[in-house]
């Protein structure tokens, strides 16, 4: 077959413009969120890359009204797929709650470093660790709200959880962190 008719890229000019306008500006947030989600910067880069390709493909046919929430939802789903695939014990269609119950998405065991953490002089450090030690469902909910400023409705869509669940997860996450700080002082 001759090389004639070689299309350089499937991406249309429209998708490219939308991508530049709505997706690229949120790269830092996408990366931070992915990194917090999988707790690993290298994996976070892969996840962001996959998420951005999906976003680019979706923008061929879609206009986005809430770009940040929309993008973080894609990042979150790619990251969840990533964690699920990485863990052979997890079933493909398990939801985040199942995974948690199976202990797969549980934070690293709180025991060994916990005491050291409590006496960590630096409040920032204990908050960072406290956040990283939260179960994934609490961590993602609190991160999306407190760091990325998503509304309850947006978080509910992103995490596929009812708004009531979002609210109770937020309350649990916050009280866990507050307790951590309280014990320290």
């Amino acid at each position, binding site marked *: 077959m001759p090389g004639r008719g070689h299309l350089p890229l499937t991406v249309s000019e429209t998708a490219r413009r939308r991508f530049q306008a709505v997706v690229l500006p949120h790269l*830092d947030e996408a990366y931070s969120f992915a990194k917090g989600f999988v707790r690993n910067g290298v994996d976070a880069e892969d996840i962001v890359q996959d998420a951005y390709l999906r976003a680019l493909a979706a923008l061929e046919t879609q206009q986005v009204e809430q770009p940040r929430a929309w993008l973080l939802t894609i990042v979150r789903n790619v990251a969840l797929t990533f964690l699920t*695939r990485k863990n052979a014990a997890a079933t493909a269609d398990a939801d985040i709650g199942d995974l948690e119950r199976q202990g797969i998405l549980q934070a690293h065991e709180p025991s060994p470093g916990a005491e050291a953490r409590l006496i960590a002089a630096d409040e920032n450090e204990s908050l960072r660790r406290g956040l990283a030690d939260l179960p994934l469902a609490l961590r993602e909910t609190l991160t999306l709200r407190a760091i990325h400023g998503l509304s309850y409705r947006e978080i509910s869509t992103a995490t596929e959880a009812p708004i009531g669940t979002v609210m109770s997860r937020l309350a649990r996450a916050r009280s866990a962190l507050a307790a951590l700080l309280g014990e320290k002082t």
Partner: protein
Amino acid sequence: MSAAEDQILQLQAALDGELDAIGTLAFERACAADPELAADFSRAKALDAALRRAAPVEPAPAALRARMAALAAPPKQSWRERFSVPSFFAAPWPAMAASLMVGVVAGAGALSLLPPALSPDQALVAAYVRTQIGGQSVDVVSSDRHVVKPWLAGRAPLAVAALELSSSGFPLVGGRVEVIDGKVVPTLVYRRREHRIDVTELPLSGHDDRILRLDSLEGYHMARWSDADRSYVAVTDLPVAELADFVTLFRAGAKGEREDEIKPKQ
């Protein structure tokens, strides 16, 4: 829900800006009447502020930024396209100069009569089309990776990542070998509904990076990416979004497999 829980959620909604005007007013009144509630509220506010200080949005690495920006960059024209005969005539040059250049153009035209060598991408798409028309996409037919992997390993010098993705809707059909750029390379064939995805592993060429690129050639979608050991090209007639899904699964699976190989057996 208990009254205490209710109050916590109310306080939280105020903190998160989720109360409407009436709710906000009511909450402010409640705070004014109850110093304990007001103190709880300012503690909650301080916690969120501390959290934002402790875990701020982190700048993405520069290399990632460059790769993502490149996704939306207009496609680069190749040397051949830029200097091809039509664009030469389209250029607003004086006709005089053009006529003086006829000899040069004729020379370039003669060059392009030479049969162009197929690029690896063209060769892979050609293989995809050939096997689709011929009806024989695989040399070894098996959905069992433990059959496909050794078969390919015995014929191609590259270690093949025959992954099981059927639980994610991409059953393995089998494998075949291709000769690309003078090298024997393994190709895995996956199915999605009535569509096919061919994944060919190529040796790392040194200037591969980890970026995932999507292209299309002859109406087929292609994805190209690399990991630490190998470079991959997927060719398919699936929509590009499903190709992206597939690549995500495949990469995660390949990564998991490598880590399993490194991990000592228990």
